[in-house]
């Protein structure tokens, strides 16, 4: 488990990270979302030790992360970087060897990983000859080649087409399933919603929300329901404990004061006409996001 405790960091008089604390559990994908300039990349750099925090600690399984630990981290920086003139396969194998893998293991691991990421045919091509999307895949291979203990990915999906997103998703999920903590940031909230187990929301350098996806959703789900009836739903307006927000003939969107009121409404609806739809209104991640960063 990777844990950040009260991380603060300033650049000059700009306080970029304010008491940032959260955990990344092993075997779970943790999504890290926030607007531009919210502090995601700075936080990731602090985790990787590329940037030192002014105060606060980063711990792995309870003990402070050392530079030796960090060599077993996998990192995909926000601004992609590989040697443009080096061959893809050779380059990923080189990074593996820098992490201490024997040459033969590094090569076979690089080939296998690139193959899974759909670059099997391009091993001998230079990085600069690849399309941006393919360079991105190579970048993911660079973060994964040494079987890291912890994986930190800054915007791993930006610039990928939907099929590539699926490929990368599968590879990352397989990786997380082996038990390592995975932290990734993304602007694409729909992907985060599908992929992450846990969620950390940062805005203006401070953590606004954190927890499992279900938990956050439950916290931000209002007691709000939708109903679609065959007949008129006008009787809802007079029902005790119900506040109707939208109304259109048989359709209504309404808040209730508690769960029993909702059940009562449903019983009455079934008794009066046929019910086509009755469901709690679950907020999307985008809605939650907008709400917490407000």
């Amino acid at each position, binding site marked *: 488990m990777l844990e950040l405790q009260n991380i603060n960091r300033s650049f000059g008089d700009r306080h970029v990270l304010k008491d940032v604390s959260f955990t990344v559990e092993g075997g779970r994908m943790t999504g890290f979302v926030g607007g531009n300039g919210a502090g995601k990349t700075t936080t990731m750099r602090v985790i990787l030790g590329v940037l030192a925090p002014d105060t606060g600690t980063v711990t792995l399984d309870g003990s402070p992360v050392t530079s*030796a630990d960090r060599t077993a981290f996998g*990192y995909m920086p926000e601004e992609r*970087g590989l*040697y443009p003139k080096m061959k893809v396969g050779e380059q990923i194998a080189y990074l593996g*060897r820098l992490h201490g893998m024997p040459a033969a293991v590094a090569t076979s691991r690089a080939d296998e990983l690139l193959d899974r990421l759909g670059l099997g045919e391009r091993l001998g091509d230079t990085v600069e000859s690849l399309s941006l999307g393919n360079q991105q895949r190579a970048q993911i291979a*660079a973060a994964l080649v040494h079987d890291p203990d912890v994986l930190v990915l800054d915007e791993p999906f930006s610039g990928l087409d939907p099929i590539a997103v699926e490929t990368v998703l599968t590879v990352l999920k397989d990786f997380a399933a082996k038990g390592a903590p995975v932290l990734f940031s993304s602007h694409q909230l729909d992907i985060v919603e599908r992929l992450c187990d846990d969620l950390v929301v940062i805005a203006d350098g401070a953590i606004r929300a954190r927890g499992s996806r279900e938990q956050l959703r439950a916290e931000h789900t209002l007691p709000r329901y939708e109903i679609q009836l065959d007949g008129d739903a006008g009787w809802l307006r007079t029902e005790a404990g119900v506040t109707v927000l939208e109304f259109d003939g048989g359709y209504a969107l309404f808040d209730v004061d508690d769960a029993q009121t909702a059940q009562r409404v449903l019983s009455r609806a079934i008794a009066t006409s046929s019910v086509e739809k009755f469901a709690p209104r679950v907020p999307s991640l985008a809605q939650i996001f907008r709400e917490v960063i407000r």
Partner: protein
Amino acid sequence: MTRYQTPSFLPATRLVAEREIRMKLRSRSFLISTGILMLLVLGSVIVAGFTGANPSLTKVAAVGTAVAVAEESGVLDVTEVGTADEAKALVEDETADAAIVPDSASETGFTVIGLDAAPGDVISALSITPAVELLDPASTDAFLAYIVSIGFGLVFFMAAITFGQTIAQSVVEEKQTRVVEILMTAVPVRVLLAGKIAGNSLLAFGQILAIAIVAGVGMLATGQDLLLADIGPSIIWFVVFFAFGFIMLAALFSATASLVSRQEDLASAISPVTTLVMAPYILIILFNTNDLIVGIMSYVPFSAPVGMPMRVFLGTAEWWEPWLSLGVLLAFTAAIVAVGARVYENGLLRMGAKVKLLDALKRS
């Protein structure tokens, strides 16, 4: 999950150095320019061999008793003709450089006929010269000294610039493409720097060594053993000085390059270092006969790789002087590498505008 043991300093440095060398050897422009340099060196050695081994004799036309006298001198290529007029004709159509004809009116009994100027070498060949004693003889002739100084200066300059720029570009390439962020999570920054310096120094050293060998073998093959014996020790000193001198330059180049984030800013950032590299080349060409300046150059670390071998060649250096100068160079190199490593570590992650040198030195 396997946790790989991160390689320790030396193996990791070797990996980085290996990559630097492999990428450079794959560069076609590098291979071609090295080939051209080798051919140039070999070519000049061979040309020097031919002109040195077969000095062309001065051609003279001689008549009658003059023939024996002319041949006796041993430095004239004599053509015997029947009459003075025939001899004059040969001089006029420039088949012969001069004519020697018997002349009873002359005190020596001969007249030397030239075309448009008195043929000095013919006259001196026929003259009796007094014994000459030089109190402070120049050990090597000035022209050869000039050629050798250009040789050392040029080779040092070219190799230092070529590999200095390679190392600087490679530092900025890593910064610009941000691959450095990934590398830094794998190995300590010092490994990156050491690997770069080692890789490029080896390449530069290899190139210099190859040039020295080509020059040496070329001289032997063209029968210039004497010249080789003359110049050999200074070439060896040159190679030794270059090896350490380049490590110092490599540290300077990489440290200054780490201050910028884009290739576009590189040239201006490294121009002070480039000037330092250019200085010995220009100084040695201008002042190769000035003992004081070459003497100073032979101890200043930046110019010692050119200055000291030059003095060894000229024979103006005592036996211990190259060793002393080498000691100075080594101490200076160690200091530069230490400072360079600090600047490099601090400069590496600062993206964007050029980092001020003082800032890079200050923060650790």
